[in-house]
């Protein structure tokens, strides 16, 4: 992200650098990264909307009203203020569906990242700390997982388990652990030789304590960055699966299924697919902007120390 780099001030002189890495706070850095601030504002607004969906949504997202079907957005010919973004093929309010759909996107994005993070971090810690055969096994598993196309795996698993919100979360969670696992393993390999780890072991700390309280806190920065981008990736994957009809059942509104339903009406009613498409795009863009900033923030070579 060259643009972002330009905004970062020049590298610090040696004196201030020796003062340590934590001089610039997140808030201060954020003020310089305006794009990330925009992303954060959008995401916070989205989060609040999702949480307060029943209060904010003008209509019941499932309320079918055939008489009002395919009504265009307000301001267009035939549009009405009652349905600001128009209605879909069954006369359901698109704005309300978008608002409720945000819940699924955010839930899937976050929950699957938590699962894949936990799986990946655990396996990465074990592989890096113990090495040897266990390392070979876990990394071999990771290679296999990487070689397998994600969408094929997802389709197969969803076809077997059947559509469902938790099945989607599970598939995304389990199949995306490799990124965490590999990064954690690499970090552990460097950290485990450090004196404080040796000291902890010499003091007779149990392994889990060394792993969780000595090693893990020292390798979190890259994980935060990976997790941020993964949220965006998972939101898109959920939409793709719902688009293919393999995601969340139609009784739950999702942006992906709205997009899929709207596709058939592109020539007749463009607003059906356009608004959920925009919602997905803006959300993913916001998260990626934040991810860019976090990556720069945690990267010592780019970090603003002034």
């Amino acid at each position, binding site marked *: 992200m060259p643009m972002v780099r330009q905004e970062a001030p020049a590298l610090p002189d040696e004196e201030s650098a020796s003062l340590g890495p934590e001089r610039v706070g997140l808030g201060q850095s954020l003020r310089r990264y305006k794009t990330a601030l925009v992303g954060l504002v959008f995401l916070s607004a989205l989060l609040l909307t999702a949480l307060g969906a029943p209060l904010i949504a003008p209509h019941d997202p499932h*309320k*079918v009203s*055939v*008489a009002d*079907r*395919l009504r265009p957005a307000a301001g267009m010919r035939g549009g009405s203020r009652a349905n600001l973004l128009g209605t879909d*093929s*069954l*006369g359901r309010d698109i704005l309300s569906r978008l608002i409720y759909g945000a819940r699924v996107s955010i839930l899937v994005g976050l929950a699957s990242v938590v699962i894949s993070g936990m799986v990946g971090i655990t396996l990465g810690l074990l592989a890096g700390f113990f090495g040897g055969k266990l390392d070979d096994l876990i990394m071999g598993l990771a290679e296999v997982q990487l070689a397998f196309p994600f969408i094929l795996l997802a389709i197969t698993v969803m076809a077997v388990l059947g559509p469902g919100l938790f099945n989607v979360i599970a598939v995304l969670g389990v199949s995306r652990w490799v990124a965490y696992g590999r990064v954690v393993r690499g970090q552990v390999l460097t950290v485990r030789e450090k004196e404080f780890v040796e000291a902890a072991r010499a003091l007779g700390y149990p392994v889990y304590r060394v792993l969780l309280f000595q090693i893990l806190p020292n390798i979190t920065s890259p994980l935060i960055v990976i997790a941020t981008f993964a949220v965006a990736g998972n939101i898109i994957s959920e939409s793709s699966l719902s688009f293919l*009809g393999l995601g969340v*059942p*139609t*009784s739950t509104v999702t942006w992906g299924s709205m997009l899929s339903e709207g596709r*058939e*009406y*592109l*020539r*007749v*009613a463009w607003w059906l697919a356009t608004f959920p498409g925009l919602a997905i795009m803006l959300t993913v863009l916001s998260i990626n902007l934040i991810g860019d900033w976090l990556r720069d923030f945690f990267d010592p070579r780019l970090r603003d120390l002034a």
Partner: protein
Amino acid sequence: MPKRFLPAALLALGAAVALSGCGAKSGERPLTILISVEANTLDPHFATSTIEWTILMNVLEPLVARADDMRVTPALAERWEVDASRKVWTFHLRKGVKFTNGEPLDARAVRYTFERMRDKKLRPRSTVPGRIALDRVEEVDAHTVRLHTRTPIAIVPVWLVNAFILPPKHYSATPPKEVLSQPVGTGPYKLTEWVKDSHIRMEANGDWWGGKPKIPTVVWRPVPETSARLAELETGGADLITNITGDQAKVLDGKKPGFQSFNVQGGRRIYIGIRTDWGPFGDKRVRQAMNHAVNFEVVIQKFLHGHGARMASVVLPPNNNPGVSSYKFDPAKAKALLAEAGLKDADGDGVLEANGRPLRIKMDVPVARYLQGTELAEAAAADLRAVGIHVEVQPLEWSVFLSNRRKKTLSPLYLHGFSSAFNEETDLGVLRPSLFANLTAWKHPQFVASYRDLRTAFDAETRKKLSYGLQALVREEAPWIFLCYQRDYFAASARIAWKPRPDERIFIPAIQMKEAKPVK
């Protein structure tokens, strides 16, 4: 100014002729038809899908065909009669007819065709011999042939419309794997090329007994995406496209000069099956209530743009009983009937209970199988929820739906469609309890008895009486939530004139090419 104007005018004229693509030379560009699916086989004894029958009916001909109004009409047989035993059907063949490979149409060809249909080694998928309980085929003379059936079957001619007559030499000499792509018959067109997943080309058969077809060349191309078919029509790459939605037809009619849309009431009956073996659905009043709860008038206005009407019973026009009227939208009556059947909302959550258990059920609907099937199901489910039956639509892949249908594990309500052979007996037959695809489990003794009588009744008046009685019974008993006959929409360029048939098939000789007019 006039000097400058002239070349521009010529250019515009030239462009207009080029765009309309025909003018006096309308024969030069083939008539191009875009279909939504590809044919798997063109061997008539293995064909199963509508598109296969459509291609075949332009190349091959049966003894008896279906006319545009869906009544049976003479084709290769000029006339036929059944004897007093009601088991021997005599067909008198049209004389002087030749297959396009030169073989003559005679009794031997007919006998060969029916024997090939049940050849044990070939193992064809043709259902005709079973449907007509075929015993044997007898060649009386070169142009007279008799079909002997094991039992009296009144509607033998109806079953024969897909029994295309084949030239024996070509079909016995060519290996089955090759003959499936080389159909040869007596029809108005000859198939000249089939490139799988690309196109099928056919040329007019100048010797056709019905007169040389006016359109010399026809090209059929499978294009699965509806929007791609529409785009190709609009850019001039096609003349006729199948399977569009009513919404798309409306846009085309409203905005695009130079194009037209056609629609026709199709033969597919779209209904919501009620599994009468599930809890309260055994009660007729509950089934009637569900029929009254569905607001189909608004569905016809909004989904079908005012075309067509709600289905009253199971038999299609022209064989329907005009005295049987469709269920009217009446939520108050629906609620009253439900209350009468003992369904009450005791806990006040808006969902009725039967024996203390809330009526929360699913409605299965196959995805992308029927025109706007999911939307019809959603609309009906919303209406049912409004009277206290909590229905949730469950879209299923067609293969999953089929497998659940076979295992009889579909939900208590399921949206389904039965195609029609345009005959009262076959139309009513979809409700016979033994039919594997009928999951209603509705076994009414009067239906079973009357239907048995209908199958062996040869007299038109008796058949009509039995059929009308059965239609009224089905309406009253309501084993289905009656929805509609599927509306088939087509779009075309302005250079053709055509009236679509209700059986989704396209018979090329019925299409007229218009003289081209300059584009407005």
